């Protein structure tokens, strides 16, 4: 599972050529960005990328540019908000923060993800046993 892939799916969906069955993949990066903002508080795009890298311990290959697509998408849904601020080293940077509806979405998405992961784990287990 790579982010490249989910990004590609989203692109196809936005053009209206593809639909259904891809919500999980599409939401993966968005979900990670939301979780990061929830746990770390307001961050700029670079900070989000560093945090994801740190958590994933470099097992994920992430095109960091796609973080900004995800951020735009999340803004459109109203799940995060953006304000210009000054970063630690005195540069102007856009800071993103999770909104209340973003928190609600995160809870729902987390449950959704856990359910799907549970199903797949169980499925793989039965395959191994047989």
């Amino acid at each position: 599972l790579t982010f490249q892939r989910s990004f590609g799916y989203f692109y196809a969906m936005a053009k209206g050529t593809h639909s259904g069955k891809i919500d999980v993949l599409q939401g993966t990066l968005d979900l990670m960005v939301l979780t990061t903002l929830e746990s770390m508080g307001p961050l700029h795009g670079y900070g989000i990328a560093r945090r994801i890298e740190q958590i994933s311990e470099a097992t994920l290959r992430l095109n960091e540019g796609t973080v900004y697509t995800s951020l735009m998408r999340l803004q459109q849904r109203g799940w995060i908000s953006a304000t210009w601020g000054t970063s630690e080293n005195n540069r102007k940077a856009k800071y993103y923060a999770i909104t209340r509806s973003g928190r609600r979405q995160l809870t729902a998405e987390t449950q959704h993800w856990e359910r799907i992961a549970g199903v797949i784990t169980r499925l793989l287990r039965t395959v191994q046993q047989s």
Partner: protein
Amino acid sequence: VKALSQLRAFVARLRFVPGRRRLLDEVTKELESHVELLAARYVSSGMAPDEARLAARRQIGNTTRVREEVYTMNSIDWLGGLAYDVRYAYRLLTKNPGFSVAAIATLALGIGATTSIFSILYSVLLKPLPYKDPERIYSAEIIVPERREQLPSLPASVQAYLAWRDARSDFSEMAALDRGSAISPAMPRA
């Protein structure tokens, strides 16, 4: 529910449409400073500046793609298409002014004529009479059953009017009018 949430998502997207150029500029700036920060990090971990910059570019991926993606996300396809169509139409019209004037005049005349005829028709035939309970107003005519083939109806004569007015009928009031010119006042019965 899905359609509703899609509609809501669409409406939410509309808010970003007017500022899409600014948002694109901002994302461009963000991507630039992202590359700089990454490169600086690589340099501080011992990379040569040029090498660090390349590595940072690799790490961030295809920025043009991201910028395109952000821009399309914030625009509505048919709106852009509409703008192009309007501009194209304008160019064609100015290129051939004679034809344009003729076409516009034809349209204007057509619309004007239709509108004026309809407004006459409306006031004459369709508009309810400016009285209370217009559906209770009737026009009385004389019909001779034997001559109906030749004369569907005859206008009421003065004598007939006077007779009807004085007779008991289901009408609460009766008045006579001469084809558009004079109206004899309504005579309330007794």
